[in-house]
């Protein structure tokens, strides 16, 4: 039942993404707050609802974006999937896992967006898209991933208290 926190938290993240984060750009790229939150959530120990969060986030983000909902669903599911895999394998180095998931997740999300827009007929040069959008966005996401990971760890400890605490 405590997972209901996903609704206000992701809602706030989508609002912040649309209103503030998308205004703070580096070249033509900017951070994806929702993606980083999902990556951090998927890496927390004991989290079993990461895919639910990803679906909810995708639906929320697609309300304010021209990209269709299934692109966000696919991208965010990919992020969560990578997070769950790495959480089981590199659990001793959570920040390394966080960086890896953020890096790979951003690349996945951008490749999916690029592919869809190309199919839809948008004239997007691949090299410019990578150099001016994806690489700066990667850097910003990686910078954002450190504080977000700490924040989501606190949230996870609150939602899934360990057996000793119980």
């Amino acid at each position, binding site marked *: 039942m405590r997972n209901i926190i996903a609704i206000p938290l992701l809602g706030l993240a*989508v*609002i912040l*993404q*649309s*209103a503030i984060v*998308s*205004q703070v*750009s580096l*070249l*033509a*790229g*900017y951070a*994806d707050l*929702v993606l980083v939150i999902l990556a951090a959530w998927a890496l927390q120990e004991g989290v079993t609802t990461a895919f639910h969060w990803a679906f909810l986030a995708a639906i929320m*983000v697609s309300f*304010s*974006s*021209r*990209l269709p909902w299934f692109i966000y669903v696919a991208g965010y599911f990919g992020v969560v999937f990578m997070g769950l895999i790495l959480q089981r394998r590199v659990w001793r180095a959570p920040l390394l896992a966080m960086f890896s998931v953020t890096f790979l997740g951003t690349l996945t999300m*951008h490749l999916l*967006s*690029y592919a869809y*827009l190309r199919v*839809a*007929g*948008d*004239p*997007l*040069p691949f090299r*410019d*898209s990578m150099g*001016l*959008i994806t690489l700066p*966005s990667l850097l910003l996401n990686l910078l954002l991933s450190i504080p977000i990971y700490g924040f989501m760890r606190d949230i996870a400890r609150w939602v899934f208290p360990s057996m000793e605490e119980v």
Partner: protein
Amino acid sequence: MKDLFSRTLQTTIIFLVVGGILVLSFGGFFSSVTNQFTGGLVSVQQWFATRYLAIQEFLAAPRDIVSLRSRNAELQKQVSDLQAQVISLQQRVNETEILAALVAFSRTNPDSSYKAASVIGRDPSPFLHYIIINRGSNDDIRRGMPVVTSEGLVGRVDAVIADAARVQLITDPASSVNVYLKNTKTDAMLIGSITGDVSLDLISQSATVQPGDLILTSGLGGGFPPDLIVGQVVNVRKLAAELFQQATVQPAVDFSRLQIVLVITNFRAVDIAPLIPTVTP
């Protein structure tokens, strides 16, 4: 008789002595004595006064500190309240300035009817150049309506919900606007890019395009009303081997500072897609 004489004598002597003393003192003969006397008096009085003040301060000081602290807290609260007021008033002044410019713009273009809207967000994807405004179908906003500011063309409404709408900026890579160059009356196509820069394409090779030429919407295609300011030519690229000239454009609108926009509500975009011939096998 003898008593009366002695009293008169005594009185006279007293008057004489007092008068003499007064004369001597006014003449300055007693100054050293009076100085010493008054100096002693003053120092005694000063001693008492300083001790009294010290005792008074000792007794009154704790009460003053408490009252000063509470007063200080009150003043700090007042200062923070006033600072908040200043910030909100500055925001109102900015909004008023923007609205005044928009009203002036709508007065200079009385044929169109406008609806002002605030920019409340941007598309979460960095590949797309869209803004979200706080007016929707409840305010008679429809898909395809042009969006402008007092500086010039912003874009067109792409999607509408009840209380909000998404606007495609002219800087979006998928955006294309039919325009003409005011000086040469030459038609061209304004296209966006992923960096947010806009450029002109499909300019006839025979046209003489100069940096600084004003670019206006042509109205061709029915997507935008004619004669909306778009920007100015910055530089021209003309190659003999190519069919058309290209030019980079400085947009009239600063897209990074969009706060309030106007939607032209009495313009209905024409969908000419059914008129475009399709190749059939």
